[in-house]
């Protein structure tokens, strides 16, 4: 069976600098794959390449066996890849509900359908009580969850989560982890960037480690956390798991 997402020897240069260098890995249907690495390792850049904000300088990206590298972000989203942003980008002056409705239109024929879907998703992500609030005023934890809700509203097969846990307090963290697990139960595949080691090691099926734009390890959380290269890369930061 072809993997859901295939990253094939992808590089991305800025000027002369390689932000991502010759990275290959696959994401299979139903998995949660963690993407980790020290700051500046190229994780978000890789997301931007997958999602279509950047074209890969070299290499290919395949989604369900179909080449998607070079397509515009909105096309890639329509094919079934949604993402969140590390620096949250809520549609600030819209209400929480409208934020999600705007994305739900992608696969809805009518406004009524879009609103219905959006309300369902807000329920699912635990944001129902906030739906009439203007999204700008929400606390960070809510905004991060709104990002997830919005991405879900496009009904993706693959969800790219960029640091959805960063800056959350312990209660919010627990809630968000619950949400991620529920998303997996729905059969949505997840590729997640995360700094919070405990979280990533506990929820991921597999982990890919980047350092200086290159892949240095891939495997189950246990394998990766024993890998000497990974330990070296994280030396100076908090030790992995």
């Amino acid at each position: 069976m072809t993997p859901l997402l295939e990253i094939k020897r992808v590089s991305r240069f800025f000027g002369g600098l390689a932000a991502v260098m010759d990275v290959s890995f696959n994401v299979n249907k139903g998995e949660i794959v963690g993407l980790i690495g020290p700051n500046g390792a190229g994780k978000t850049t890789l997301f931007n390449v997958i999602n279509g904000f950047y074209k890969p300088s070299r290499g290919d990206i395949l989604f369900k066996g179909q080449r998607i590298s070079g397509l515009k972000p909105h096309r890639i989203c329509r094919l079934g890849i949604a993402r969140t942003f590390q620096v949250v980008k809520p549609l600030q002056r819209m209400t929480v509900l409208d934020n999600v409705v705007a994305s739900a239109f992608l696969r809805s024929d009518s406004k009524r359908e879009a609103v219905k879907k959006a309300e369902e998703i807000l329920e699912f992500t635990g944001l129902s009580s906030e739906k009439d609030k203007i999204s700008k005023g929400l606390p960070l934890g809510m905004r991060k969850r709104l990002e997830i809700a919005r991405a879900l509203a496009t009904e993706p097969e693959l969800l790219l989560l960029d640091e959805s846990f960063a800056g959350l307090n312990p209660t919010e963290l627990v809630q968000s982890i619950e949400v991620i697990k529920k998303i997996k139960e729905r059969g949505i595949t997840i590729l997640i960037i995360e700094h919070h080691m405990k979280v990533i090691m506990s929820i991921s099926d597999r982990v890919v480690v980047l350092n200086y734009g290159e892949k240095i390890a891939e495997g189950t959380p246990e394998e990766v956390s024993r890998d000497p290269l990974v330990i070296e890369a994280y030396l100076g930061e908090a030790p992995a798991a």
Partner: protein
Amino acid sequence: MDAVAIEVFLQTLISGLLLGGLYALIGIGMTLIMGVMKIINLAHGELMMVAMYMAYWLFVLFHIDPYISVFIVAPVMFFFGMAIQRFLINPVLRVESILPENQVILTVGIGMVLANLATLFFTSDYRSTPVKYASDAWYLSDYWRDSPIELSLSVPWTVSFTISVVITVALWFFLTKTDTGKSIRATAQDLEAAMLMGVNVERMRLVTFGLGAALVGAAGCLFIPIYYLYPALGGRFTLIAFVITILGGLGSTVGAIIGGLILGVFESMTATYVGMGWAPVGRFLIFIAALIFLPGGVASLLRSRRLGK
């Protein structure tokens, strides 16, 4: 091509380059403000108009040569620019509104007020400054008797061009060698990093707007001996400055210089070969062409050459 055609062509090219040098000075001021403040100053041409009236009255009332008044007008414009930044633009940076273009619209308002006040005080008459050397020129045949073609070099145009080159070089030294200059460049490149490094961003904004106004003020003085003056010319030069910035690449100083030269030559060519009235159309055509074919401006070409990509 016969001799006359070559003569016309070369003469057009020369006047284009001379004009372009002055355009560059206007463009650099605009591009500096754009780089540091991330706003487009749509009152740029009006600032130049104000400077030109200053130079004009300094000449008429006190018989100060426009080339001397550069040293008076540019500092005055510097403080004028700082005041605009401090009392008008800064407050708006803090105002919450739906459209971020508020600041740009604000500069439009400032430009309207300046242009209209100039009309009120000085009427909308065209004025020119009767400097003695206005129509002096150097002729090629004076230096090379047997020259097959005749070319001339207007004295005031050449002097203005030379001074604008000197100012540009001085500016380059200021931006690359002094602490303030380096801080300005740092602010333009990466606001947050500059703040972390302890750059006083607020002050840099003041200085930059002042500097931009001073540069366009100097350009105004240099235009005085060779151009006529009327209150509405501001809008025209604002557009020119903007076209240069797009042509050169947003926020790029070198780009602005090259953009200015290209625009000068192109306008001069359109005026000679298509017709005077069409020069503005030529200006916009090159602008549109740049938008479509060279969205990053000349600066993007320079960058890709240097990095060999």
